[in-house]
């Protein structure tokens, strides 16, 4: 079964394809720029590895569903980058095979009257599977972002690990963040945790910056950028990274 990953493909598609699948032992990278309402199915076969980057912008449809399955030793790395107005994004990842792994990262920037709901779920069906869900959320103006993540470990998921982490930075008085980071653990030989925090920019930080001649505006930019950067830097595409940093500067 074990084949060495031979090729690394990187392509940008505008999600007209409904099924993305990576064959046994293969490695692939896909950048999805969704344009119509879609139900995307994704399959990562035994020992395969997929880097899946989803860009969800104003051009996208308000509802997005993605359902992925990861087989034995398969790895799915996902990035969801969200700069849209209104959307409900439902992502369900089934870890079907032993030692299957998912690392799901969300970068959400809500401005104006944005209303975004994210529903990422990792379901551990097999032993020794691992899931990691990281989200960084920035909201300003009267944006409202809901992030209801869920790590669901079924009865035969012994030896599995799941971690859900959600950090939000609130930049205005009228912005709102809601979160329900859920854990449903059906067996004992597992490790699962979640962490959530919601903060604003500290007056002390701004004062510190001001005392060094940095205006409040650029200090806010620096802090927000610093907040998102650790996640942005994990994106395996330089062009996209640069584009994102530019976009953040525009939005701030």
């Amino acid at each position, binding site marked *: 079964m074990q084949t060495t990953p031979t090729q690394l493909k990187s392509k940008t598609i505008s999600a007209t394809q409904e099924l993305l699948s990576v064959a046994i032992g293969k490695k692939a990278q896909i950048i999805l720029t969704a344009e119509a309402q879609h139900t995307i199915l994704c399959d990562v076969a035994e020992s395969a590895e997929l880097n899946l980057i989803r860009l969800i912008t104003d051009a996208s449809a308000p509802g997005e569903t993605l359902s992925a399955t990861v087989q034995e030793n398969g790895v799915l790395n996902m990035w969801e980058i969200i700069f849209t107005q209104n959307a409900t994004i439902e992502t369900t990842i089934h870890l079907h095979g032993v030692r299957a792994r998912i690392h799901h990262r969300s970068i959400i920037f809500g401005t104006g009257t944005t209303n975004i709901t994210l529903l990422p779920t990792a379901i551990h069906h097999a032993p020794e599977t691992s899931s990691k869900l990281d989200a960084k959320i920035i909201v300003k103006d009267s944006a409202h972002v809901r992030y209801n993540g869920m790590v669901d470990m079924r009865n035969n998921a012994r030896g599995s690990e799941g971690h859900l982490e959600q950090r939000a930075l*609130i930049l205005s*008085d009228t912005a709102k963040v809601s979160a329900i*980071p859920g854990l449903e653990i059906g067996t004992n030989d597992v490790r699962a945790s979640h962490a959530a925090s919601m903060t604003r920019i500290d007056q002390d930080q701004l004062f510190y910056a001001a005392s060094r001649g940095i205006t409040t505006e650029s200090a806010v930019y620096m802090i927000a950028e610093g907040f998102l950067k650790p996640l942005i830097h994990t994106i395996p595409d330089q062009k996209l990274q640069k584009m994102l940093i530019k976009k953040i500067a525009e939005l701030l």
Partner: protein
Amino acid sequence: MSKQAQTLDYIEKLNKDVFDKGNAYEYAKGVKRGLSEALVRQISSDKGEPAWMLEHRLRSLAEFYAKPLPRWGIDLSGLDFDKILYYARPGEIKNRQDWNDVPEDIKRTFERLGIPEAEKKVLAGVGAQYESEVVYHSLKKQWQAQGVIFEDMDVALREHEDLVKQYFMKCVPYSDHKFAALHGAVWSGGTFLYIPKGVKITMPLQAYFRMNAPSMGQFEHTLMIVEEGAEGHYIEGCSAPKYGSQALHAGCVEIFVKKGARFRYSSVENWSKDTYNLNTKRGIVDEDGIIEWVGGNMGSCGTMLYPCSILRGRRARADHLGIAFANAGQVQDTGAKIIHAAPDTTSTVLMKSISKGGGVSVYRGLLKILKGAKGAKSQVRCDALILDEISRSNTIPDMQIAENDVSIGHEARVGKIGEQELFYLMSRGLSENEAIAMVVNGFIEPIIKELPLEYAVEMNKLIELEMEGAIG
């Protein structure tokens, strides 16, 4: 003797059956099972209640019929409202000031539960509820002299009607949910506590509830008013004997913490395994006030209990501490609800849950920061321990933040007892069972240590009983 040896010593002596057997008792009034308007009127006239209370009961009853069952949480399909005994009273037993006056069989029940010992020690007043009527009540004279009112709810309604009317079901309105409405219609007994301005009660006040009739509902109402600058600590424990039919507990606790006051509410709930515990507990805290909830949920087949703090005054604070133990056939759906409605309010939540033998423990929390609650701070932590592979633990913390000048942190962890921890303890000569019990005790220790001694001992006892046969 080492601490562990002591622990094991008293585990051996314990006999859990005492909690599962009730005393045979003749009911003075053969009240029918099931709910009706006639029953509600009868309760009210039996107690000689004022007209406004009857009116409140009838309004609640209408609301109860109108409201649907909750569609979330535990499975309530086993609950048959027609089979529940909503109201019962044992003979002529009424308030007694002296322990010697309490009838022998009732005394025996309390002795099994350790009440006299608690009384002998520092605990200040005992209000022990035996089948819907408080039979034993004592309060240290010095508190009485300072104007503290610590009474059975029915007596309070007669003697302090104005106070009761001002606060009764103002914190938990009957229109809140189906079981609040049911409570409003058939409530009976409970505790009333009024601490006047500036009075600080250093000793904990205590009441013990116990259900004894088969299929008997317990709808006690607890109303506590802590005036400006006052301080107090109230403890209650609940234990019900085991019977074969579904019983229901839908009590209600309302606490008003006024400006600068401080109040701690501790409870150990150990209802029998056929009881649904659908209790509503809520407190409203004014400026600079502090409310503390310490709770242990052990028994019942299904629990839905989320103590709630409404922080409506500037700098108000709420601390929630809780333990839930879900054993075979149990669902412990508990949590904490905190509403920050004023600036600079703070809250902390620390919840620990243990699941064993196929039990399900759920942390369901709500953290709501309203617009304008600038500078609000909240820290929530829930830890879950799953002792075997068939048990479950769910964590569902709902966070709704509508203000940016806040600091919110939430953390949860789920896991099992590490092999290494067990190996270490066993290499020191402990059996696997003892080692597990020790780790569990350590796990819940931060909460146990907040309970007064008697309760901490009882809580530990109960945990040890639940832990029996953890292996094989």
